[in-house]
């Protein structure tokens, strides 16, 4: 049986005709160069994204926030380690920064291949139909992931859906479609890069008929307009936008003067003074009342036995000081000097000797009102119930009377305004 195909030589007028596309810059070589950048960059963004899922340790306590995590796509690359302390700041900073910087390249790549959307005939064979469907998934998931991520880091929650879940499974659509796209297009990419004709300055269709035959589906316009911007100019513009966006991401993770590089992003801005470092949930927005954290505040520690401790009693325990970052899923981080009681000391006081996980419960009962740390975090001597920061009592915005701080965990797992610590022994 033959498929009833439309006449491939008679496309309807408009964008279905190759001569409709007149930019002299489009060519398989330009697309290949942009594709090569994405071929290197996008897998890094995808893998650091999966690592962030690891870092949230969704298998522990309520960390999955209601997500079922036994499906085929709920994979973990490895159990999240408790160090080096900058690990999550690095992986998540790279995820957000590279994502920002690659978006202009994605848009340029889509611009360079737009004539393909209108190719004629629309379907040449079952293979071609499936390939186009897969391309729709690739473009759809790429734009979905970039748009949701980019809106999320700017505090604009324009979507109604739950961000972590939508972004996580959307990433899998992307990974699947990209894994099919790369082997299918790699020969085209290699062929296009091999043609060392004037790629940057040149324009128009490849001159020789031989070259044309070698590239029957060329992206070059058969009727190019006059060159008003060289390919080098276009790539300069794309690289310029990428570079400025890269600096925004780097600035969000940096301290000192470099932080001002992030002059176009709201995340991680600081206020003056030793306690002015960034905060992502203020005391005011927690809705808590002052009396809850006054003299009558007590910390309940549950293990084999239950202790109730006042802030004075906590301050009387051995205090330790470490420089540790708060690293947020939105890609910003800030390193400060925290002082407090080792969580492992509190576990011992509660009669828990072996490996244990720790659920810290906040007075504030929102989405991240509690979080569970793994046994490797609990055992780490740098995991503190912090009472002071930079030599001062914790400010209310940063979690007074006490907050959790632990190396290499996502910022929201460093529970503020802690009211209860629950240790549960685990087998490792």
């Amino acid at each position, binding site marked *: 049986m033959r498929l009833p195909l439309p006449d491939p030589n008679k496309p309807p007028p408009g964008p279905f005709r190759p001569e409709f596309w007149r930019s002299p810059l489009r060519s398989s070589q330009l697309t290949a160069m942009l594709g090569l950048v994405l071929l290197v960059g996008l897998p890094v963004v995808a893998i650091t994204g999966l690592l962030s899922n690891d870092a949230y340790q969704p298998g522990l306590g309520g960390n999955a926030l209601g997500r079922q995590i036994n499906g085929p796509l709920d994979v973990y690359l490895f159990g999240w380690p408790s160090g080096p302390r900058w690990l999550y700041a690095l992986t998540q900073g790279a995820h957000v920064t590279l994502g920002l910087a690659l978006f202009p390249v994605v848009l340029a790549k889509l611009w360079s291949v737009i004539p393909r959307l209108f190719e004629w005939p629309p379907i040449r064979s079952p293979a071609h139909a499936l390939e186009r469907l897969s391309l729709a998934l690739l473009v759809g998931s790429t734009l979905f992931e970039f748009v949701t991520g980019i809106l999320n880091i700017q505090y604009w929650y324009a979507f109604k859906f739950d961000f972590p*879940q939508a972004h996580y499974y959307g990433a899998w659509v992307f990974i699947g479609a990209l894994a099919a796209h790369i082997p299918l297009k790699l020969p085209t990419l290699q062929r296009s890069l091999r043609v060392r004709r004037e790629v940057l300055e040149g324009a128009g269709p490849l001159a020789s008929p031989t070259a044309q035959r070698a590239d029957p589906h060329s992206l070059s316009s058969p009727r190019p307009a006059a060159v*008003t911007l060289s390919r080098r100019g276009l790539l300069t513009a794309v690289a310029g936008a990428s570079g400025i966006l890269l600096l925004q991401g780097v600035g969000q993770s940096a301290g000192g003067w470099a932080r001002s590089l992030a002059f176009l992003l709201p995340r991680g801005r600081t206020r003056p003074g030793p306690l002015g470092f960034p905060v992502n949930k203020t005391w005011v927005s927690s809705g808590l009342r002052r009396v809850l954290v006054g003299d009558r505040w007590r910390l309940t520690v549950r293990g084999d036995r239950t202790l109730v401790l006042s802030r004075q009693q906590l301050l009387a325990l051995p205090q330790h000081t470490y420089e540790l970052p708060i690293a947020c899923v939105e890609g910003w981080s800030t390193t400060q000097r925290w002082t407090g009681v080792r969580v492992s000391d509190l576990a011992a006081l509660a009669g828990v000797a072996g490996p244990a996980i720790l659920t810290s419960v906040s007075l504030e009962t929102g989405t991240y009102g509690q979080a569970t740390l793994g046994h490797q975090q609990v055992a780490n001597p740098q995991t503190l119930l912090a009472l002071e920061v930079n030599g001062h009592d914790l400010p209310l915005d940063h979690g007074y009377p006490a907050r959790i701080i632990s190396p290499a965990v996502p910022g929201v797992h460093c529970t503020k305004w802690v009211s209860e610590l629950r240790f549960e022994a685990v087998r490792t």
Partner: protein
Amino acid sequence: MSRIRARYGAGPGHLLLLLASFVIAGAAIVGWFQRPNDLESVLVWFVAAVLLHDLVLLPLYSLLDRLTISRLPPRSIAYVRVPAIVSGLLLLVLFPTILGFGAHAELRASGIPEHGYLLRWLVLSGVLFAISGLAYALARARRAH
């Protein structure tokens, strides 16, 4: 094997690769379905992202270019288009911040009122156009010699 190729249009490896990617996409939809109330808006955003980009955004910026920059003297076009592309891409990525869409949520989260981003973007765009204008003047002077 050649019969598969004739009917399908490519080798069996092609088919297997694409089917594998569709299976993964199917599993992702099952994952999204854990929140049935979210599924509709996720799919709407997914489809809208493609349609809005391919059929609205791309034609719109092409048309804008044709109506404005393309009408300039040919030798000056590149010097306007490059800063316009940079400035436009930054606005496209950062418009929620530049236009203050996240201001309320940001004030609640960080305690810092959001303002001044529009001015910063305008100043940066101005600097980019100024640098490009300088490059244009230098190129013209060199041509004149």
